[in-house]
């Protein structure tokens, strides 16, 4: 059955929607109308494809990880190399798309939120390329954890605004970006980096990211002559997972999203709302969240700043409740081990986010056979995480 959501009000079953201040509603309507007008427009599509091919570096490789496969001696493991995208992560698939749209909407300024800094860098990159003024909100805690990315954004001509409210991480950066947008809505495009936020963002970001899955499908058919058995991807807000999952929904391929279990699911210090959260509204949409009995949002924790978020995109909540994908979790420690394993076995440093997906092999590979095929979405590269990994391993650089 064809999966055709959201409905015209931006709902995925009971999830999604537009829970934002009235001031933003007209802007969301305008964005929705602009997106509807251009998404199938041949000129828009040609331009997007041009930048995907000549700037982002698409299609990205689908790489057979022979050493990793040998190491486990079970299913064949492929890596979808989104880490090879320009900028080092899948985030740019979305920012180039949104920048082309914002240009057509006549916006002059772009704002974005960022956790690990990858979406901030991708926004700054698109802003530089298409001559937008750009400001990125980043939790103060994250500017410290990811100082390299802060400087990268500065080099790209973007101002990074440290956010000191609340938990000083991604959720607060997003609050602050929304406040900026409420204030400057007429001139500014808010470039949301995940399949989260109010409609039409979850849909639009999914559509810009589904190229990951579309390519994977085509490449897999070419290499193996068949569909994979499993696709594994990490889930923070969930854009890389949605991107690779979406074209496979309902095809029988097992789709597995990995949330960060942080210090462990029972410690209360994790970022796994699909596994341990309850339904609620955060940042404009209804989805699973980490919250207390009164609906106050609880701080998330993950060693990976990009997964350190108490919410998740609404379509993932829909997938979970309707069995279209399954979700599991990986601790900081397990992700660190996978980071080292992939580096040593394949000569590829994965982003700590993506290392969560790699780590899940330990938990599932035993039930696979040599005939099975697994694809892991390697959503980003790990250079940005070297300092964090060194700290965690007790190495002084």
């Amino acid at each position, binding site marked *: 059955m064809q999966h055709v959501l959201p409905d015209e009000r931006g709902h995925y079953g009971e999830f999604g929607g537009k829970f934002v*201040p*009235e*001031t933003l509603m007209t802007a969301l309507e305008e964005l929705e109308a602009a997106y509807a007008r251009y998404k199938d427009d041949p000129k828009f599509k040609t331009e997007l494809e041009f930048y995907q091919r000549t700037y982002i570096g698409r299609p990205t490789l689908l790489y057979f990880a022979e050493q990793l496969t040998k190491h486990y001696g079970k299913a064949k493991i492929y890596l979808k190399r989104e880490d090879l995208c320009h900028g080092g992560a899948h985030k740019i698939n979305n920012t180039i798309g949104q920048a082309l749209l914002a240009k057509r909407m006549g916006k002059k300024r772009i704002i974005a939120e960022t956790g690990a800094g990858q979406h901030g860098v991708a926004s700054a990159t698109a802003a530089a390329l298409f001559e937008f003024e750009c400001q990125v909100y980043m939790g103060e805690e994250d500017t410290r954890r990811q100082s390299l990315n802060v400087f990268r954004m500065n080099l790209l001509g973007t101002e990074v605004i440290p956010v000191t409210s609340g938990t000083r991480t991604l959720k607060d950066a997003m*609050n602050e970006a929304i406040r900026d947008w409420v204030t400057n809505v007429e001139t500014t495009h808010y470039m949301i980096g995940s399949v989260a936020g109010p409609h039409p963002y979850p849909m639009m970001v999914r559509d810009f990211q589904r190229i990951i899955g579309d390519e994977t499908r085509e490449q897999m058919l070419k290499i193996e002559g068949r569909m994979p058995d499993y696709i594994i991807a990490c889930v923070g807000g969930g854009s890389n997972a949605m991107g690779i999952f979406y074209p496979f929904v309902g095809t029988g391929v097992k789709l597995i999203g990995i949330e960060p279990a942080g210090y462990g699911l029972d410690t209360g210090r994790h970022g796994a709302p699909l596994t341990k959260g309850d339904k609620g509204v955060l940042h404009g949409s209804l989805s699973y969240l980490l919250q207390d009995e009164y*609906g106050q949002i609880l701080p998330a924790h993950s060693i990976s700043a990009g997964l350190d978020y108490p919410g998740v995109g609404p379509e993932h909540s829909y997938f979970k409740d309707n069995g279209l994908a399954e979700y599991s979790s990986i601790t900081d420690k397990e992700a660190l081990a996978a980071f080292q394993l992939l580096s040593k076995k394949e000569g590829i440093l994965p982003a700590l986010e993506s290392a969560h997906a790699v780590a899940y092999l330990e938990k599932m590979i035993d039930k696979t056979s040599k005939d099975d095929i697994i694809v892991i979405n390697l959503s980003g590269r790990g250079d940005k995480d070297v300092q964090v990994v060194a700290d965690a391993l007790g190495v002084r650089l």
Partner: protein
Amino acid sequence: MVVTKLNRIDEIFKQLRATKRSALMPYLMAGYPDIEASLSLLISVAEAGADLIEFGIPYSDPLADGPTIQAASEVALTTGVNTDIAFDLVKKAREKIETPIAVMTYYNAIYRYGLERFAGNAAESGVDGVICPDLPPEEASPWSEAAAQYGLANIMFAAPTSTNERLKKIAHMSRGFIYCVSLTGVTGARTNLPSNLTDFIGRVRKVTDKPLAVGFGISQPEQAKQVADIADGVIIGSALVSLIGADRETCTDAAAAYISKIREAMDS
């Protein structure tokens, strides 16, 4: 339980209209500066001349609020205040005051508590209406129905960016009054009123005869007077909250004095 008596909010606007006055509507926050003081403030502000009190339940992620209310929310949440305690404070205040009270909080606080349960407990404690800044008409039906069932006014927002078509929808759905956001931005005191405020209020007037209250950015007596000339209600939030935060010992008296001064300017 279905409440049939006229809601206190409708009552006050009826009275004020008859005397051609505007409502003075201060915002206070449950648990700010602490739980006990927020109860004293409800009473003192009512006695100082408030026509309606907005009583905020602090929220962890107040994305429509500026720095003053964000900071106050963080302080208030450390006092252990929660939705039940906020309702209890209203119940206690009701022993002394009849001033209409509208609770203001974000939708997740309502959703998580349970729509029916929230509406029922709010009404039972003496709350008259609910203001929810992140619940536009598109998503408001379930809550609006639950609120109506308990005789609570569901107060909706209108913004300068709202199209006329949206204003119609908002006006149709809003009960009690319409909360007109004076500017495109978050809450917080501003030096000047936006220049297009009169036009905006005029646009809303064209689609409804429900009472219009203006909030965001109003802090000075003369601003309140100007707004009172064009609207049915003047909402004062951040300015009062920062005054309360400045000196917790004397905040009850200081708040009362400030409200009297605004009242005087509005009635002059």
